[in-house]
């Protein structure tokens, strides 16, 4: 089993190096193979992790049920994005296209490699290092299109995310200090050790470390008020990168917060950590719901939907009930699939209409016979419609919230999610379902109406993959996966 961990950490890295020198035609196939293989390897970890055991490899790599949940979310999106990229990147023969392709594929594989490493490393210090690596690689990927918008977004991203990670580094050091009171002045920050000693850590220090960690890693997760880089980076990056940023990167940053949460509940009890998460969660959900009502840019719309879902995750964690925590973990998986699919659909639309402006896109379903309806389905999935996975996960979160003494929070959650649903579905209906004749009134859009037909079959395949995964998560959760979620929720729960 430990060789599985090594394979997951080595394979994408090797592929990244190869794709930097190989021709683009080879790289795209290699990336798909690597993505599918890595996803398969992570799925193979599920039975072991679900059966109460941790898998370790040396002192550096370790996987338990919680890590495997995030690993599966990340690697699934790796595979889907690899397939989508084959259709998204236009094959070109010029020197510029070749250079772009080489950089793009090397960056994509490295990015996925670093995100897969985050849940697998053992210890808070390595966790910080891995997340910092995801930042530096994704900054370069955001900037890769070399437009004014991409440069601005990349600068904001690198500055704000680095500041966040500076705070997170401070959190790591303060938590290390908390540990020195139990383990002496020199020890490694491995999870088992910290969790075992956490009952005896000084509470004031752990409180400081937890707040710093939520603020620091929350910056990368897109929690309000430190989310400001997120809509810019998501909208200006190439679409495959947007999908990975939204579905995987935000999730692995949430994973980092959960690791601190695990320690904090052992030292402080559940009330303080939950309240901190609740404040950030409500702020994120509220702001995102309002911004969703006034968007003009298709990819920014989806970016704010990510802020919304990160808010739902944090609020879900603030509910005490185990069923809510299971819901949160399922939500991580379902959000990765749904947001990936939605961004793939947005990529298809942007390619077709050559604009991200929501007021200029009309009649999407007519122009895109396959990816159009699938984009609508993905947006419905994001709005928690059955039979998709997010319906099930939000249902679990809300029912956990209603069993909480503070059940008003659950009511607030439902109201804000409904507002977001309104924003998302309003714009989707307008752009995808309204025929373009009515909307333009004979304006200049008539002339630029795109012909009917798909941009690429690869895009359709990647979206279908995401929707199938969403339906499986929503209709019938495989029993192994269900055990995995239960086990991970138990790891996150308050120990008795």
């Amino acid at each position, binding site marked *: 089993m430990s060789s599985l961990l090594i394979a997951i950490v080595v394979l994408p890295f090797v592929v990244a190096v190869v794709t930097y020198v190989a021709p683009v035609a080879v790289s795209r196939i290699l990336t798909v193979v690597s993505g599918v293989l890595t996803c398969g390897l992570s799925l193979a970890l599920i039975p072991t992790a679900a059966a109460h055991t941790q898998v370790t490899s040396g002192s550096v790599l370790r996987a338990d049920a919680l890590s495997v949940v995030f690993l599966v979310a990340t690697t699934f999106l790796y595979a889907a994005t690899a397939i989508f990229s084959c259709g998204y990147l236009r094959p070109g023969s010029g020197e510029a296209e070749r250079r772009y392709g080489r950089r793009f594929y090397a960056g994509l594989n490295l990015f996925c490699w670093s995100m897969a490493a985050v849940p697998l490393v053992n210890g808070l*210090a*390595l966790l*910080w*290092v891995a997340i*910092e*690596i995801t*930042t*530096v690689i994704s*900054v*370069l990927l955001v*900037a890769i299109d*070399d437009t*004014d*918008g991409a*440069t*601005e*977004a*990349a*600068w*904001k991203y*690198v*500055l704000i995310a*680095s*500041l966040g990670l*500076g*705070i997170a*580094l*401070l959190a790591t*050091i*303060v938590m*290390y*200090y908390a540990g*020195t*009171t139990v383990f*002496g*002045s*020199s*020890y*490694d*920050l491995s999870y088992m050790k910290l969790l075992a000693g956490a009952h005896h850590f*000084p509470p*004031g*220090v752990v*409180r*400081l470390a937890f707040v710093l960690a939520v603020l620091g890693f929350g910056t990368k997760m897109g929690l309000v008020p430190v989310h400001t880089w997120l*809509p*810019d980076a998501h*909208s*200006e990056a190439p679409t495959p990168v947007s999908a990975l940023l939204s579905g995987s990167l935000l999730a692995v940053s949430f994973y980092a917060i959960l690791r601190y949460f695990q320690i904090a509940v052992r030292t402080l009890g559940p009330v303080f950590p939950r309240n901190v998460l609740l404040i950030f969660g409500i702020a994120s959900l509220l702001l995102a719901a309002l*911004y969703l009502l*006034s*968007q*003009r840019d298709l990819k*920014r719309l989806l970016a704010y939907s990510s802020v919304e879902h990160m808010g739902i995750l944090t609020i879900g964690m603030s509910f005490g009930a185990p069923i809510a925590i299971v819901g949160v973990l399922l939500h991580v998986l379902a959000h990765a699939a749904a947001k990936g699919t939605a961004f793939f659909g947005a990529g298809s639309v942007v390619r077709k209409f050559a604009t991200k402006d929501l007021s200029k896109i009309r009649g999407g379903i007519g122009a895109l016979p396959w990816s159009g309806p699938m984009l609508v389905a993905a947006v419905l999935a994001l709005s928690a419609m059955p039979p998709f996975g997010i319906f099930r996960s939000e249902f679990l979160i809300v029912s956990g919230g209603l069993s909480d003494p503070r059940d008003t929070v659950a009511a607030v959650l439902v109201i804000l999610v409904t507002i977001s649903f309104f924003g998302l579905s309003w714009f989707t209906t307008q752009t995808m379902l309204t025929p373009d004749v009515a909307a333009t009134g004979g304006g200049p859009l008539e002339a630029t109406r795109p012909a009917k037909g798909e941009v690429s079959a690869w895009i359709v395949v990647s979206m279908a993959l995401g929707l199938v995964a969403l339906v499986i998560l929503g209709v019938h959760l495989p029993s192994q996966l269900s055990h995995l979620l239960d086990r991970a929720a138990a790891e996150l729960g308050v120990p008795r």
Partner: protein
Amino acid sequence: MSHVPSTYAGVTDVVAVLVLLTEFAMLRAPFLRSQVRLYQFQSLVVTALAVFVAASRHIDELYVLAALSFALKVVLVPRLVLRLLRDADVDLAGSSVLGVTSMILIAIGVSAFGVLVVGSLRVRSAALPASALAIATAVVLVAFVLIILRADVVSQAIGFFSLENGVSVASLVLAAGLPLVVGVAFLFDLLVAVVVFGVIMRVHHGRAQTLSTSDLDRLKG
């Protein structure tokens, strides 16, 4: 506190204050070049603190870390930024949002806030200098002020690097025994971040022909 602080606590506190004062000096530095020099000085002070902690607490691994941090933060990073400045042929810092006096007043306010908040947490032990953590927090907060109020990429990047210096002070005081591998990994990550900052700064300068960030306002809402 009634007891007389030990030499160790005294020296670390003095060094922490020195780092904070350098941070204030950065706020008012009119030339980008002098800002880089101040960062260089600040890094030197942090390196000296590392050597002092290594010697007084007998942690040999810290010498390695001090050497690395000297090579990286005192030599390499300033050189990279200075080269960018030479290529860009800009030296005067762009106008900041507020005047120097207001910036300094705000910085005094936030650093007082930082010191009071951390002080109220009563993070205290026999081995720990009383106020170094509080001052390190103030450094981090003043770095934020610098980044928010200065409107050019070099000041903002230097702001981030000096924030890292503040975190280093906290790390030397709180976590001197941190395994060497971890310390090296942190520094390596900083190096990679510096390179990426450099790349984006060059791209920005190449596109906009200025180091100012005042035109980076297209993306909003």
